[in-house]
């Protein structure tokens, strides 16, 4: 078992916003511990350091899809084949893939663990109060679809990943960990 030290998150200044980031290495170790080693992604700016770390790490296979719709389909195929998939996308990808989340994820009962980045979010504001529509609407959209979710704001929230994976499997449908703070 790998011991993970939760380091204090350094502040991050980006595009005029002061945010706190979560170290990509912490996500990497948690994903490996949860045996989520096959990553299907349409790259997310918010989680770019995590994607870079996963791409360098031989323990992971990263499959880049052209669209999030494809990503959901690939995850279904992986699951039928005996592989637990992780779908790493941006909030825009949730909007883009509503039909496959419904038709495959929900109707076919596929337990997909999702990591959804809130790109462009002002970390001082709750997602539902954001000015931007994607950050404001994505959690209500997930709720409307019946997709359980938890927000990861700091490294201390990382255990949510395990709960989300378990939730997806119990419910036999996708569940989403929402990455509220950028990975660094």
């Amino acid at each position, binding site marked *: 078992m790998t011991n993970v030290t939760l380091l204090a998150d350094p502040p991050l200044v980006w595009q005029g916003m002061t945010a706190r980031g979560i170290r990509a290495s912490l996500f990497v170790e948690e994903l490996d511990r949860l045996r989520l080693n096959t990553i299907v992604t349409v790259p997310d700016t918010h989680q770019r350091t995590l994607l870079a770390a996963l791409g360098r790490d031989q323990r992971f296979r990263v499959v880049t*899809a052209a*669209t999030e719709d*494809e990503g959901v*389909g*690939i995850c*279904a195929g992986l699951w*039928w084949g*005996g592989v637990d998939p992780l779908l790493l996308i941006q909030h825009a990808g949730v909007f883009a893939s509503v039909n496959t989340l419904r038709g495959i994820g929900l*109707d076919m*009962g596929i337990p997909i663990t999702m990591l959804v980045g809130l790109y462009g979010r002002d970390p001082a504001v709750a997602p539902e109060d954001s000015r931007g529509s994607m950050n404001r609407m994505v959690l209500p959209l997930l709720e409307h679809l019946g997709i359980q979710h938890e927000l990861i704001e700091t490294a201390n929230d990382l255990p949510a990943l395990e709960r989300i994976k378990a939730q997806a499997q119990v419910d036999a449908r996708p569940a989403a960990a929402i990455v509220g703070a950028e990975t660094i």
Partner: protein
Amino acid sequence: MTSLTRAASLRALASLRHEQIVVPTMTALAGWHAIQQSDLDMPCVGAMGSASSMALGLALARPERQVWVLDGDGSLLMQLGSLATIAEAAPPNLYHFVFHNGVYVFSGDQKIPGGSRIDFALMAKAAGYSKSFTFDDAESFVTTLDDVLAQPGPVLVQLKLDQSVDDGLPVRDIPLDPGERGRRLRQLLASTRAG
């Protein structure tokens, strides 16, 4: 030369099918179901366009088995980027058959964008598939299919169908529970892996 029909294509495929996982969709689905049924079939219904992506996931998860996707032309157009995604992932066990009739059959034979002119074999080759083929007559397809399936994937096979012929097979969607089919497929694959 004999024109190529959906029925001739499906019967040729069925004659060579053993332990392959098959992902049929749209007009190929009802015809395939009428000819052959297996717990290794994973129909794509309710998410038009997703058959190729579902097949890619299966091919990556189960590299020891061939995965055949029986796709539609309008269906593939809905996730055309999957050609690049599949080529990049480069699963050697994925065989992508595109039933190219040039129309949306279910909704009333409206022409797909590009109609019969559009060339999926060229697109696949340009995207980076290992090989791509086009067949428009039944005899060539039947006699060559074995060799096509011996090529390392990903391979795309474009089947240019003669829509003027009623091939006698059902067309419309059939009542299936894809969720149950998926769970059954997962169990079957798990048991064969363990064995």
